């Protein structure tokens, strides 16, 4: 059943938006409201922390609200470990980790997870492989056993490999028949970052996945799976002391990875304009991203940038959504996002509109970006944005899985509980001058932009040229960026 909704926008990985309307009689007095929401800030619970002999970091938090236990295991490496030309190797390895381990073949492994109502999956990330799971608390011992098998004793069965690889290639092709709001980000990152590892499609592309062999997977596993790469956070209904003993026994003997963890080279904003036009001949609307390189996860300006993003395109009344949806009806959604990694990732605007209004929508986006860079946001908008971020933060740390993920994320970036505990103070005390400086740093200048458009090329080709030199490819091409995009 489809749920049709009022909003569908936001790409937002970090923050958000905008209404540049003047404050009206109904508007709140910012200072009063700010104090109210800041009082309701959330703190990270205290974790029992262990470092295993092999260097694995384990963080445990008891939470007995519901009879569930959740974990987030992060293994440094991820797609950064993909050799050039073998994009998707980490993703293929991630899939195969779930296809049989220890005493269980693929079917027995799936049966073991499903039969108790558990969930367990491996996700390839740009800089880590993430294993996430949730089980009923009565099945905690089984959960540890399955995780330990998956990490240390994967089978990498040749038949499963061949089948999984074929399915992944088909899935990439089939995905292009679906809603492109998700997929366009992959084209953008590939085109924008070119040869930098951040340009690699996380799931690979049809061309790079097809030739991957078992030797490639075994080499990846040898190099990038190991106890020293592991950050494991478990939150839920268990006895921490008992679980610590159990985990030490199950994971403490895991050998180190054969290679040091890969490190992403620095990134920086690109100069000049470039346009990628991806032809979908039957499209009746154009999907687009417009952006440049932004900031890293550990950037001291993260909160100021999040305020910037919230006001620009991270909430319903954002500048972008107000202009493109609320006032003009050009689109169902317009938003912006900050993608943060160890090195600066993308800061981008995203929307879509019917083919005929492509230029109108893009012109509006460029106009908003230029105006925002120049004028920043007024005091009322800043106050509202602060309040919004304060109010929306607590529900992001509501479930055991959210908490486990947060613990692993903080450890991965070398951050600590202050990132959560001081969040409300940092948001409440944001200074307009500092926010403006952050805004002018991350919102791309008009002359320095990467644009990616997916749509009916025959109808929008001329329009695309208006925004910069155009590179073209077809949606059906078995890769996500034209070869000449490498930089």
């Amino acid at each position, binding site marked *: *059943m*489809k*749920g*049709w*909704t*009022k*909003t*569908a926008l936001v790409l937002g990985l970090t923050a958000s938006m905008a*209404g540049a*309307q003047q404050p*009206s009689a*109904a*508007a*709140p007095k910012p200072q009063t*409201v700010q104090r109210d929401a800041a009082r*309701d800030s*959330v703190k990270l619970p205290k974790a029992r922390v262990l470092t295993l002999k092999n260097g694995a970091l384990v963080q445990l938090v008891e939470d007995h*609200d*519901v*009879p*569930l236990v959740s974990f987030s295991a992060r293994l440094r490496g991820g797609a950064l470990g993909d050799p050039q030309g073998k994009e998707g190797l980490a993703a293929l390895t991630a899939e195969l980790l779930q296809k049989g381990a220890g005493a269980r073949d693929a*079917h027995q492994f799936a049966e073991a*997870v*499903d*039969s*108790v*109502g*558990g*969930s367990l*999956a491996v*996700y390839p990330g740009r800089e880590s492989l993430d294993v996430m799971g*949730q089980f*009923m608390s009565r099945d905690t011992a089984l959960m540890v056993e399955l995780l330990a098998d998956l990490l240390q004793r994967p089978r990498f069965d040749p038949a499963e490999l061949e089948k999984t690889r*074929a*399915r992944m290639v*088909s*899935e990439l*092709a*089939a995905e292009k*028949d*679906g809603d492109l*709001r998700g997929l366009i980000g992959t084209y953008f990152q590939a085109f924008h970052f070119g040869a930098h590892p951040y340009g690699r499609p996380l799931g690979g592309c049809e061309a790079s996945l097809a030739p991957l062999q078992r030797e490639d997977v075994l080499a990846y596993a040898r190099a990038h799976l190991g106890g020293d790469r592991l950050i494991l956070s478990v939150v839920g209904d268990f006895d921490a002391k008992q679980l610590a003993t159990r985990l030490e026994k199950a994971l403490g003997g895991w050998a180190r990875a054969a290679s040091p963890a890969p490190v992403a080279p620095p990134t920086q904003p690109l100069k000049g304009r470039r346009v990628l036009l991806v032809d979908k001949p039957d499209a*009746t*609307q154009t999907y687009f991203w417009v952006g440049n390189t932004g900031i890293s996860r550990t950037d001291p300006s993260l909160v100021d940038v999040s305020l910037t993003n919230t006001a620009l395109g991270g*909430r*319903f009344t954002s500048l972008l959504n*107000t202009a493109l949806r609320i006032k003009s*009806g050009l689109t*169902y*959604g317009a938003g912006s996002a900050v993608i943060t990694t160890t090195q600066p990732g993308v800061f981008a605007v995203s929307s879509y509109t*019917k083919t005929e209004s492509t230029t109108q929508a893009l012109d509006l986006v460029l106009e908003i970006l230029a105006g925002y860079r120049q004028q920043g946001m007024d005091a009322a908008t800043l106050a*509202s944005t602060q*309040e*919004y971020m*304060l*109010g*929306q933060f*607590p*529900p992001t740390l*509501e479930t055991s899985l959210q908490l486990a993920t947060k613990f692993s994320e903080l450890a991965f970036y070398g951050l600590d509980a202050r990132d959560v505990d001081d969040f409300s103070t940092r948001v409440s005390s944001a200074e307009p001058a500092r926010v403006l400086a952050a805004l002018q740093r991350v919102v791309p200048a008009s002359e320095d932009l990467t644009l990616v458009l997916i749509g009916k090329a025959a109808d929008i080709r001329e329009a695309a040229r208006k925004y910069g030199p155009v590179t073209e490819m077809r949606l059906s091409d078995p890769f996500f960026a034209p070869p000449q995009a490498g930089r």
Partner: protein
Amino acid sequence: MLRQKLYITGLFLLAGTSACAQGRAAAAETAVTTPAAKAGARIQERVLKNGLKVIVWPVPANPSVSLYNWFRVGSRNERPGITGLSHFFEHMMFNGAKKYGPGEFDRVMEAHGGRNNAYTSEDVTVYQDWFPRSALETIFDLEADRLANLSIDPKVVESERGVVYSERRSSVDNDNSGLLMEQVQATAFVAHPYQIPVIGWPSDIEGWTQQDLERYFRTYYAPNNATLLVVGAVTPSDVFALAEKYLEPIPAQPAPEPVHTVEPVQQGERRVVVRKLAQAPLVHMAFHGLRGRDAEAPALDLLVRILTEGDSSRLHRRLVEEERVAIRVQGSRGAGFDPSLTWVFVDLPPGGDPARVEALLDEELARVSTTEVTDAELRKAKNIAVADFWRYLETNSGRAQALGTYEVFHGDWKELFRAPERYEAVTREQVRQVAAKVFGRDNRTVGVLVPETASSEAEQMQEAAR
């Protein structure tokens, strides 16, 4: 993660579990001693003088609140000419009232730290607010203003048509799966308004009149046609006081005309073919199923899980792993006011063979109809259903959604807490019986999306071949 993606589907599945009331004392005791049931014991309800029912679940753990307002109106209440109007109206509810003019609802809510959304289904329209507890009174003021005094500005209506058309383009016109699903649903029903797509047909999106909108508001946006759920860092007495202050003065309206059309029994398979530029084919099968409150609903829920949920499920194993004719199989069971569709969705690889997929589905669906599933399969499905139940109860929004589902579709939110025992009571034979009832070939509509190649691409390929 996969199971998280299934939460929405699962919630609708959960909707169907309340009517199978063979209780077990042991299971009931277990439920009472659990933390969530204890929290549930703090739930209070009150019916205001205008008929609005207010249900409050205080959960102090996190300083935020979820407020869900369920209206009993969806595409089921539409007819040709005004299809999609329920959903369009959902959009209009954010576009200005008397005290808070155009844009003010969102602007004021966000300035107080709140966020909102809404969704429309065949049966209901649900408005959702998520906010810090400090904003509680402001939220009531905002909700009361739009319910009492919505303004329907013709200029805003015109702009919002563009927004909804864009939504349709994203989810249907430029999404092959959405397109096929719409065609199958429209073919499966010949009389009942469940044939109408919630987003609406294009010509109707362009054609709603001012009078249509005003009539809709008067008819369906009445306090006596709604149920309000408030879950989170609140106390019931505070919520009731605010509801009485802000919402009770809004007068009740005559009850809407009931929908009494019953879909005639289907007497033979229906087929629909969509030819579309695509890389890969799709096969959808839809069977006339059950109402949310039907006694066999929990058995059908468990059956759909046995067939499609998880990599160990029957259809995934057979079609994706063993025969390799599909790259994904998903299932869904509607659980609305009237008998809804039970679906099997199959994504094929490029060059895949829809006929082979259909043949395998025939075989597997016949198998569950003639032979009982195993004890282990039934146990597994029950465990998944119960674990999902707990996952909903981890968040305020999940609690508000689950509680509302039971209150609206089963008539009593208390049924939510009996869901685990109702799953437990299902037998293998009940699962077989419901399979035989639903998965008949004469009871189904089969949809196939047949890929076509763009002529320009075909030409380029020919040139390359020269």
